[in-house]
């Protein structure tokens, strides 16, 4: 039905925006393999072979090995805690009836639009008072709380949609609520759960403000914070800066390319209230 001209225009538009979307990404990749002596603060291209040493330098000289370790630890704990707590709460919201459940659920959903900036100031003073700043707890606990808004909302949708018949069958078989949840509903809900895991992983891994405020010693820096400081100190070292950026982006991009449907579903689902 569509004309040849229209097809060409379509591909032209798509090509243009693909180039725009990829230019910064390719620019950083290319600079990451370039030579370190370049004084250009813009992008560079590797003229004399690929300098893999930029990555090892960023790893050791920029201490990104330590930062990556911190990010892995914080992200793993936040994702695990969010997953377990959100499943428990969403299960109750989704399949049980008790007074106040609607109000409590809405309390959780508020967290989806509440900006971090409205919490960060008292959080810092509270955690400092508790002598928890400059510790992993100062990153883990607030980020778990913030991820729970999405987790509870997302998993409740799953539990509400999961077949009533399955739950009743489990009960007739003598399963109590606890075993029904872990033996029946959680195994069945693996797609929904993995979407939540992937989204929480990305948000926690990329989180910056919390780390900037809560952490002042180098030992607890996460990768985005490390990159910000690295840029402050070595802004002339474009190749190292780019290599460090690649190290940070790579884990999320790999997961994204592998599981892009789960990613997109979750990110869109997070804001779509019923």
């Amino acid at each position: 039905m569509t004309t040849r001209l229209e097809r060409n225009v379509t591909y032209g538009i798509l090509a243009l925006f693909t180039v725009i979307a990829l230019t910064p990404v390719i620019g950083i990749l290319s600079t990451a393999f370039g030579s370190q002596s370049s004084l250009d603060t813009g992008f560079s291209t590797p003229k004399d072979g690929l300098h893999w040493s930029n990555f090892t330098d960023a790893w050791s000289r920029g201490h990104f090995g330590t930062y990556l370790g911190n990010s892995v630890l914080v992200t793993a704990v936040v994702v695990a805690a969010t997953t377990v707590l959100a499943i428990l709460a969403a299960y109750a919201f989704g399949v049980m009836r008790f007074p106040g459940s609607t109000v409590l659920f809405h309390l959780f959903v508020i967290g989806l639009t509440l900006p971090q900036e409205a919490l960060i100031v008292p959080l810092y003073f509270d955690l400092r008072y508790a002598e928890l700043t400059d510790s992993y707890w100062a990153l883990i606990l607030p980020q778990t709380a913030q991820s729970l808004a999405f987790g509870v909302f997302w998993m409740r949708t799953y539990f509400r949609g999961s077949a009533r018949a399955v739950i009743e069958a489990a009960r007739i078989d003598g399963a109590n609520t606890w075993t029904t949840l872990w033996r029946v509903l959680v195994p069945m809900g693996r797609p929904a759960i993995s979407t939540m895991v992937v989204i929480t992983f990305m948000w926690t891994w990329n989180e910056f403000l919390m780390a900037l405020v809560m952490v002042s010693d180098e030992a607890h820096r996460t990768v985005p914070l490390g990159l910000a400081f690295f840029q402050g100190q070595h802004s002339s070292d474009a190749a190292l800066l780019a290599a460090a950026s690649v190290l940070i982006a790579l884990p999320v991009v790999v997961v994204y390319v592998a599981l892009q449907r789960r990613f997109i579903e979750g990110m869109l689902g997070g804001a779509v209230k019923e």
Partner: protein
Amino acid sequence: MRLAALTRAYRRRAPGEPRAIGYLYILPALIVYAVFLLYPFGQSVWLSFVHWDGLTVATPAGFDNYRALFTDPSLRAPFLHALLLLVFYAALPVAIGLLLAAVMTRARVRGMTFFRTVLFLPQVLALIVVGVAWRSILAPDGLLNDVLRAVGLGGLARPWLGDYTWALPAVGVVGTWVGTGLCMVLFLAGAQRIPRELYEAARMDGAGPLREFRTVTLPGLRPQIAVALTLTIVAGLRNFDLIYITTSGGPGNATSVPAYEVYHRAFESNQVGSAAAVGVALTVLIFVLTVTVSRLVEGRRA
């Protein structure tokens, strides 16, 4: 009819069986959520009514901190910047997203998955990384200026992020780059739900691509447009990372936004009460804008 409505109302009120044990399941999440999110938000509201430097004793401020949002230019400007940035962070991504989704839906595009994956990619990158990449593009000797010089427009070249007039739009463009793919993906999903018959009817009436878009696609995507605007507005107003890494609010305070002002006041210039008021005002602004959007775009159903 009455009965059906009653049953429906009953079902909505009763998602499951009555179980007091539900409280136990909710308790762990509720404790973490209350202690590290709800309680701090309450404290923010309290802090916004005091003068406090973070060290000495806080003194009551009444509405001083809120009044200053309107009278103090250094507080008014960040909110105006944020609203202006919404053109880049929300309006443009929705417009470009509509264009992309429209052309992709109309002509059967090969490599759909490829385009969708690539165009959505900016969404998954850490904003700090995005900021580092775009700093290189917008630098005085960066890609943008190189291209301008190459095509003979060297006169337009400038240090984009250091220019009083251009720094804010420059940061805005980065926001457009981040948000466009998200909108496109939302609209693609929405367009698939528009009944094919509507398109066939439009074509029978001799509608061209433009009229087809205006009469079929656009009305069909109303709910998705509301969601896209809500998402991009919330993300745009919350955005701290991009400003911090690209301009730190500068030059002067030409690119300062409320999110940056909260950080700056609380942790760099010891005006904790004022910072809290900015945070609370930002929350109210987000709330008002998202409610307005769903009213306007989705109509009364929202």
